[in-house]
């Protein structure tokens, strides 16, 4: 374990890169991508089993030591999110939950109010709750009060690959909220992930960009490298931007008078 570990609840992670498991063309590519990225936490969802097709279970493709973060996708209310969380716990795969409560199918924006409600209920039941929300300072403060273990603010719309559109608002959360800030949604390129980490985010989650890339394992590795680079940039103390030029070479001893 390096000495820049990510602490969430009772766990420590060496990797600050989380990968989502949705939309991959096939499960073998998913497994390759997870391994290439060295991710230590992945998201999964819960759905009704397909009664006609006995599909191979996705858990067979996720290495055992990886922390499963079950999302509550499909939930439209706090109540539905709570139900999904309890089902995830009953499935015996841990009690780490990403609360995702979405009511709009156009932008897939999270319902912050219902997310706060679900966080409060589930945290009280002992779940480790990582809520997916808009990067709003008041929402974040309420989530801290409600017992969230981290905050997952969106970078841009889920699946949009538009990058860190909410940059300035994520910066506010990084500066004002004591919990780990895990940027999630819309991260479409390694540079976006690097940017998020340079701002001071604790971690980044990527799903769509990797799943639909031409070469998912290669991109997964690139994202992991970008997260490391961005984190090192942040820790090393990035210099401020300047509006004027300042010479890099000495201003004395010129060869020409």
């Amino acid at each position, binding site marked *: 374990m390096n000495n820049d570990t990510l602490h969430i609840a009772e766990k420590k992670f060496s990797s600050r890169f989380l990968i989502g498991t949705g939309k991959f063309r096939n499960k073998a590519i998913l497994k390759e991508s997870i391994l290439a990225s060295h991710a230590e936490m992945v998201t999964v*969802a819960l759905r009704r089993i397909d009664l006609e097709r006995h599909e191979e*279970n996705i858990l067979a493709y996720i290495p055992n030591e990886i922390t499963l973060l079950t999302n509550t996708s499909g939930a439209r209310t706090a109540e539905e999110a709570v139900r999904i969380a309890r089902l995830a716990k009953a499935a015996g795969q841990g009690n780490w939950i990403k609360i995702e409560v979405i009511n709009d199918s156009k932008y897939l924006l999270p319902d912050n109010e219902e997310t706060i409600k679900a966080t409060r209920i589930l945290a009280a039941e002992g779940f480790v709750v990582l809520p997916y929300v808009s990067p709003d300072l008041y929402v974040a403060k309420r989530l801290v009060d409600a017992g969230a273990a981290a905050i997952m603010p969106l970078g841009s719309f889920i699946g949009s690959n538009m990058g860190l559109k909410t940059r300035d608002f994520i910066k506010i959360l990084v500066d004002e909220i004591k919990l780990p800030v895990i940027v999630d949604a819309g991260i479409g390129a390694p540079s976006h992930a690097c940017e998020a980490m340079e701002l001071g985010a604790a971690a980044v989650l990527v799903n769509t960009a990797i799943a639909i890339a031409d070469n998912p394992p290669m991109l997964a590795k690139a994202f992991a490298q970008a997260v490391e680079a961005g984190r090192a940039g942040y820790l090393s103390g990035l210099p401020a931007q300047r509006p004027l030029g300042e010479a890099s070479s000495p201003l004395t001893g010129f060869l020409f008078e």
Partner: protein
Amino acid sequence: MILTLNGQNIDLPDGLSLKDAVSRFTKTPEHVVTEINGKIVAHTAWEKTSLSANDTIELITFVGGG
């Protein structure tokens, strides 16, 4: 007996146990979680839980997701 399974009407043998019902539809029952009439039924109770006509059953498992 007719009951509702994952939103579909389905005909299963009378008195079928939940355990036997689950194994008809999956090769990995250990990763399936079940509800009968809105209540989660723990794995340990599957064998001794018999299904009844008009029960609403949910068989749920993990899938890829972001």
